[in-house]
């Protein structure tokens, strides 16, 4: 008779109050190779992971002025991995001592019926895009270099065209709230990528 399994009570609550620290920038298509080359040298010793993702933005409108936004992401090129649901809070620019944009974030792995479930919850899809690129890691920092593609026929991820002639570069990390010193590490890493790419904390409010 095999040993009885240890029965545990369900872990409820998840990880509370995680913050995403973010720096963003972009490079023109012709500079991509030199940036990837630099990142291979600076990041952890691993081959960068290539990805093709489909991301959908869902909105839930209420009486509040701003709708509730959730991002649903799925891999197009790899089968059988969970969908990724992400909540991002209001971004805080902070003062000069904080070197990255900070926002509350909740990352959830889900089953593949996420779209159907969000619609059932009352969410509506606002927009979608395809992102193709590479992920590098350095410690808990993540560097994503990707190209954003517009989807020409809603829902059809085969029929796409590039949004611009450049690549989006994002340096991010997720850490518990109140650990602003982690942004120092991000700044020094961003310094090492100059002048190939200038990573800055970009206030999304400025773009709207």
């Amino acid at each position, binding site marked *: *008779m095999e040993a*009885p*399994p*240890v*029965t*545990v*009570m*369900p*872990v*409820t*609550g*998840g*990880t*509370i109050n995680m913050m995403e620290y973010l720096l963003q920038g972009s490079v023109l298509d012709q500079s991509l190779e030199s940036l990837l080359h630099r990142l291979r040298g600076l990041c952890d010793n691993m081959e960068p992971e290539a990805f093709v993702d489909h991301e959908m933005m869902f909105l*839930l409108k*209420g*009486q*509040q002025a701003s709708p*509730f936004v959730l991002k649903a992401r799925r891999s197009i090129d790899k089968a059988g991995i969970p969908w990724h*649901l992400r*909540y991002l*809070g209001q971004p805080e620019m902070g003062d000069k001592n904080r070197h990255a944009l900070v926002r509350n974030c*909740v*990352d*959830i*792995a*889900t*089953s593949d*019926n*996420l779209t*159907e*479930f969000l619609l*059932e*919850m*009352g969410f509506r899809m606002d927009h979608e895009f395809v992102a193709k690129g590479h992920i590098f890691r350095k410690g808990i920092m993540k560097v994503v270099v990707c190209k954003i593609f517009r989807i020409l026929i809603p829902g059809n991820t085969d029929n796409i065209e590039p949004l611009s002639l450049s690549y989006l570069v994002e340096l991010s990390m997720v850490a518990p709230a109140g650990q602003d010193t982690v942004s120092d590490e991000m700044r020094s890493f961003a310094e090492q990528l100059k002048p190939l790419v200038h990573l800055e904390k970009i206030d999304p409010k400025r773009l709207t």
Partner: protein
Amino acid sequence: MGVTCVSQIPVAEGKSVQQTVEMLTRKLELLGAEKQGTFCVDCETYHTATTTMGNPAQPGKLMYVMHSSEYPLSCFALFENGPCLITDTNFDVLMMKLKGFFQNAKANKIESRGTRYQFCDFLVKIGTVTMGPSARGISVEVEYCPCVVANDCWNLMMEFMQSFMGSHTPGIPSVFGSKHDSVYSPADTMIQYMELLNKIRKQQQVSSTGMR
């Protein structure tokens, strides 16, 4: 993971919930089932805030968020007759963020806790269903581990259940109907628990209004 049937067993006449549970577990132990710790399934109800949603097409739809000790790192979100989303436990954090849109009906939190038994290829979980401080009923979950196609093992499961549930052996669960010969999944078990816990909650509401 195999095929599972979740059902309710009525409280024996003149006995308390606890005494009925003891009678059942004694029968199982006499059969030779081995005790393997405890289990817990909980279910929280969320109201869609219809007043804020302003969507008359979905008046007061209820959403259920459930956890099971059999899948300790997962969270199951369901609608009645709707999809069941399986997520990690960060979904609970998201529900807190969604407070303005979905309100947790805390008084409706209902759970089943009890003992987990193994009898050869079967897992049996006898649980006391509680809502707040009071015991409301008894749940019996029977899982036949080696099979994942419901139609292929239902007769065997029924025969086994008859051995300790007698006349209270349930009929074929409605989730089996939609499965035909497809693979049974943990979501199907949670749907059965959701239906059972809702039934027990409603029974109580009816009997408490009847007493007034």
